């Protein structure tokens, strides 16, 4: 019979105390592990989604709101800017690329993004099925959206005005799915991407329907809408529809439309110093730096995280004390047994090891159960809550800081087990056996 088996037998003999101690430690471990996992995955997701985007240019307002809406697609944008800004900033010497984004519609919570094909390259996205859009109202959908909705190439859907599902439905102009992106583990997976013109057309039609007697763009678009509607009604006139939509495209560009924002990539690092200041001071636009805004956001959230960390830390300390108390109480109750073991030939070192192993087993079980709680809990949460979310989390991820957590907890457990083990080591056997 090995010491390990004896230690296990001792723990099983007082199973209720052992279970309570394991759960106490598991609770502390799980709390810290969840914070570590969430923090690491959030930071990673924030960085991954902002890769290649040095600056966001949009309407004046909250810079954080602009970044959240334009990069992470989790907030409403502060306003629109003129499409003329596209050419202005694309031609700027310190800007390598300026990708326009037009927001406004959604489908079952998945946002419709009007943009240019280069948008997909920000996420190194490849087409898994189908092709990129070529005409207005053709869309390529993200992999998560495809998985959640079951939509595929060849399907069509009516977008909803606004970001909630109870908005006005654009039944008159259905989006046609022509492609599905491969999974990128970025916000792209939950987006519906189409041409900028699609969004313009959709909203010009919407405006035309809302104000049918307006002149200018609206009346022109109203005609286009009628034309388009007829074309859709007669599928055999597809070529005619294509020609008409081309005319629409020209008309909206000619008359000018708004976009929501521009995603900027600098041509040189020096632009990071000068360009935001230039935009904010000299134009009626706003420039927001994703890394800066996210750092600011994490600092704000970090205050709360620190409190949670402190709370979780206190749980772990409490659990370590509980292990100490349990082993100490067990030592007192078993002092005769331990003395008998000495009589049977056990050395002081073996008794020390026995108590120490018991403490470590409790600690290891607590850590194991705690990590299982944390990872399993996050995975369950992601399954239940994560689909369709802009930033998803997974329980099947091990972050490096968890190694530090495990080592720290093992040390705490070892320290908690040390004193009872030492008392077992230094016990006076003859006195113990003579005691009542």
């Amino acid at each position, binding site marked *: *019979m*090995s010491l390990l088996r*004896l230690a296990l*037998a*001792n723990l*099983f*003999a007082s199973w209720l105390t052992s279970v309570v101690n394991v759960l106490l430690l598991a609770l502390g471990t799980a709390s810290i592990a969840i914070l570590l996992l969430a923090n690491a995955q959030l930071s990673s997701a924030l960085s991954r989604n902002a890769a290649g985007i040095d600056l966001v240019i949009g309407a004046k307002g909250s810079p954080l709101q602009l970044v959240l809406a334009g990069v992470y697609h989790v907030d409403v944008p502060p306003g629109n800017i003129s499409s003329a800004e596209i050419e202005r900033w694309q031609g700027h010497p310190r800007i390598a690329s300026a990708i326009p984004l037009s927001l406004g519609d959604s489908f079952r919570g998945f946002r419709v993004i009007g943009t240019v094909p280069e948008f997909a390259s920000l996420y190194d996205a490849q087409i898994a099925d189908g092709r990129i859009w070529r005409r207005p109202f053709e869309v390529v959908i993200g992999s998560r959206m495809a998985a959640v909705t079951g939509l595929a190439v060849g399907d069509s859907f009516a977008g909803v005005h606004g970001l909630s599902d109870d908005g006005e439905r654009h039944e008159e102009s259905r989006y046609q799915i022509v492609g599905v992106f491969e999974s990128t583990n970025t916000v792209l997976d939950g987006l519906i991407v189409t041409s900028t013109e699609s969004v313009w057309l959709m909203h010009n039609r919407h405006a035309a329907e809302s104000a049918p007697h307006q002149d200018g763009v609206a009346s022109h678009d109203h005609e286009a809408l009628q034309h388009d509607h007829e074309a859709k009604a007669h599928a055999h006139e597809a070529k005619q529809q294509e020609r008409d939509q081309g005319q629409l495209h020209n008309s909206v560009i000619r008359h000018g439309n708004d976009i929501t924002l521009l995603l900027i990539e600098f041509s040189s690092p020096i632009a990071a110093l000068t360009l935001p200041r230039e935009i904010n001071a000299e134009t009626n636009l706003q420039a927001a730096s994703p890394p800066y805004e996210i750092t600011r956001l994490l600092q704000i959230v970090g205050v709360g995280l620190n409190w949670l960390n402190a709370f979780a830390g206190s749980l772990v300390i409490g659990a370590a004390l509980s292990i100490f108390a349990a082993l100490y109480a067990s030592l007192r109750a078993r002092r*005769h*047994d331990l*003395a*008998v*073991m*000495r*009589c*049977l*030939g*056990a*050395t*002081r*070192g*073996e008794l020390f090891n026995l108590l120490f192993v018991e403490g470590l087993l409790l600690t290891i079980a607590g850590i194991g159960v705690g990590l299982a709680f944390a990872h399993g809990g996050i995975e369950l949460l992601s399954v239940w809550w994560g689909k369709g979310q802009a930033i998803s989390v997974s329980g099947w991820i091990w972050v490096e800081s968890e190694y530090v957590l495990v080592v720290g907890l093992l040390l705490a457990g070892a320290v908690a087990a040390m004193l009872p083990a030492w008392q077992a080591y230094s016990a006076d*056997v*003859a006195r113990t*056996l*003579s005691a009542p």
Partner: protein
Amino acid sequence: MTAEKNRVLQVEDLEFHYDQPLINIAKFDVARHECVGLIGPSGCGKTTFIHLIAGLLQPIRGHVQINGVALSQLSERETDRLRGRYMGVVFQRLHLIPSVSVIDNLLLAQRFSRTKVDRSYAVNLLEELGIAALKEKKPSQLSQGQAQRVAIARSLAHRPALVVADEPTSALDDGNAADAMRLMRTLTAHADAGLVIVTHDQRVRREVDRVVNLGDVA
């Protein structure tokens, strides 16, 4: 020379005291197959004597040899190992390890003695004591008499040279006390070991080869 080799316990000029002299023994030997009753009134130092010969207490003076090895020449660790290897102890309150089964109590004695763990030998011992059916039971599930037999089996599980029993019959009625004595005698003889029974129980006098009064050996 043969008599010397047969001695499993040799005590010479042993002295120990707390506040006042408690143990003062000029000579005390036990040979293999021999069953010695060490008697004396309560408080005369019987249990202290066991602790001295087990190396759990250090004498003020004198020598104890177990199976020819002087305890005074050993480190504490070596003493622990010698005790585990050559001595079996039956405690007054039995002190079976409650968290493990009957058979594991015996195997634990083998493990701490650093002898080969021999499960079949342990089971044979339990069979000889008529309690093999209880081998998977926990000590808490045993009667006093059954626990007594398990304690005897454990003291012999690692084939010791000397078995020391501290008041093994004090909690037993006459019938069970006689049974326990007979079993210990038979099994220690079978194991080629010597047996020391430390007791104030006068019933033991009838069951031993010789009786030594702790007050008379000074």
